[in-house]
């Protein structure tokens, strides 16, 4: 019987055929903890009787949710994790590198065929590298720290086949919002989503990351793209690995198959307060905005910032909105800086912050007051996600965010010349 990409990865890592539905104690190749979920994971590791981390080489510590420390409590958490990293000989990137998921990808800490866990739900993004990557809680992470392994129920898979060429100003974020709207907030619960088809094959790594990042918003355990030339080119220089074939079998068994054609896709917007509440931009055009956030692990890469800058052109942002731009990592920040994008955003009136989760964390800064409305390129529009529970968050692509930041209201980026 044919295997899905997920079954291939678990079978290879376990050295024997593994099928969806089976439960295995699988080795963990890499584990990531950050400043919010890390302290509790360390505490649980110790409560489990842990003294030495099983595989310090395989663990990455970094801070991105509350950086630079926004409170004494956050500063204490950072100190606590620094001490643990030093004590255990764990790599600590501290607050230097940026948003955890972007950093994990760009440092090559997730590679094709690997099993990676992170104490953050958007860990599913590393499926863009052809890894099986999933978010776990702090206690599960304590277990991983102690044993270097974790129980996994090998998930069934949903296959999303995407065809067609994106219209102008429509891209991966619009696609993944459309898919979330179609599949629903729990339509892929406990499953892996395999993204495939010509559109995905032609998509750059940044776009694939955007898609895989939001698999969790459909309840999925992970999202994956089978590695191809684009993947291996991305891995080159990040990891000393020879490309090897890894893909689902043509006769693999899927729990669900969906087909999408992006040829006529309109810019998509998720309206408050659910990610699967998705409409064409035209249905919410004209909605007045108080804040626009361009950034996050979903859409804070150079490609996203370049798209936003292109839409912005030489205009200014509306004085009615606060525009916050946050590159997702130091590398992405430098690329944007060198390309003149940071200057363009600052001249246009934006606040360009250092790499971090920013308003998407809903606690550090950039919070919304009751009644305020935000348009965001991030991944969640839950009630209270970016501040007051009485505020509203809409989600969109970088192009739609930039067009809307210029006008001060939700705007179709195709209409901005």
């Amino acid at each position: 019987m044919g295997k899905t990409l997920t079954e291939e990865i678990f079978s290879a890592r376990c050295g024997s055929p593994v099928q969806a539905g089976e439960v295995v104690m699988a080795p963990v190749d890499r584990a990531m903890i950050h400043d919010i979920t890390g302290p509790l994971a360390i505490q649980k590791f110790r409560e489990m009787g842990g003294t030495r981390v099983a595989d310090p080489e395989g663990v990455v510590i970094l801070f991105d949710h509350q950086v630079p420390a926004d409170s004494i409590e956050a500063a204490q958490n950072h100190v606590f994790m620094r001490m643990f990293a030093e004590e255990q000989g764990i790599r600590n990137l501290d607050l230097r590198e940026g948003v955890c998921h972007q950093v994990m990808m760009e440092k090559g800490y997730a590679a094709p065929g690997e099993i990676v866990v992170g104490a953050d739900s958007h860990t599913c993004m590393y499926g863009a590298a052809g890894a099986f990557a999933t978010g776990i809680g702090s206690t599960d992470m304590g277990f991983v720290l102690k044993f270097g392994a974790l129980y996994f129920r090998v998930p069934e898979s949903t296959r999303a086949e995407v065809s067609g060429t994106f219209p102008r100003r429509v891209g991966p974020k619009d696609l993944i919002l459309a898919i979330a709207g179609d599949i629903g907030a729990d339509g892929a619960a406990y499953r892996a989503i395999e993204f495939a088809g010509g559109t995905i094959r032609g998509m750059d790594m940044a776009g694939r990351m955007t898609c895989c990042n939001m698999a969790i918003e459909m309840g999925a355990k992970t999202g994956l793209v089978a590695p191809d030339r684009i993947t291996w080119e991305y891995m080159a220089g990040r990891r000393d690995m020879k490309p090897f074939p890894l893909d689902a079998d043509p006769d693999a068994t899927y729990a669900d198959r969906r087909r999408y054609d992006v040829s006529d896709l309109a810019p998509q917007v998720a309206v408050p307060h659910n990610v699967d509440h998705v409409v064409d931009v035209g249905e919410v055009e004209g909605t007045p905005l108080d804040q626009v956030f361009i950034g996050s692990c979903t859409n804070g890469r150079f490609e996203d910032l370049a798209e936003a800058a292109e839409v912005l052109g030489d205009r200014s942002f509306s004085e009615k909105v606060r525009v916050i731009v946050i590159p997702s990592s130091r590398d992405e920040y430098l690329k944007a800086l060198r390309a003149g994008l940071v200057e363009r955003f600052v001249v246009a009136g934006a606040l360009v912050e250092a790499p971090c989760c920013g308003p998407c964390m809903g606690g550090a800064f950039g919070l919304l007051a009751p009644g305020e409305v935000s348009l965001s390129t991030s991944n969640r529009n839950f009630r209270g996600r970016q501040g007051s529970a009485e505020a509203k968050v809409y989600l969109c692509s970088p192009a739609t965010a930039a067009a809307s930041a210029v006008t001060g209201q939700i705007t179709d980026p195709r209409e901005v010349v």
Partner: protein
Amino acid sequence: MARKKTMAEAATAMTNPPRVWKFGDDVDTDQIIPGRFLTIYDPRELARHAFEGTRDEFARQAKDGDIIVAGRNFGCGSSREHAPLALKGAGVRVIVAESFARIFYRNAVNVGLFPVVCTDTSGISDGDEAGVDAGTGMLVAGGRKYTLEEVPRFLQEIVDAGGLVEYARGLEEVTTCQKTIRSR
């Protein structure tokens, strides 16, 4: 980490039996515990902010033994374990939902809560008197009985141990790539 009852609370519990806190579909972890409280790790302290801004009376009124009953996809969103901890700190032990988000479900089991699936919770109302019958394992709410699905077998050992910490404390090592059991 069970909350110790004061005399006053114990007296209240006698006159106020455990009740249902009813929620709808897609209750996310940002609602259960908003992002600005994530520097807190103590369950009782977290409980003071549970559902802050969306259902403020929960933190004030929830008491030991109360049961959360929800629709589909309870606990969707962030992997923050602060969410099940906040509910545990509020005295909740049992969460009944038509379905759970994956990470929340596993976190809940790991911290010693009982997340249980009940295929249809639509007949259960907010404020219903409720409890789980120790003999039959059925949920009794508003005078009616509801069948609860069992926890998947591979998690049962963790549930029996009282959580993953208690389970893992006794383990010196694990054997990888041994398939355990086929879960349901």
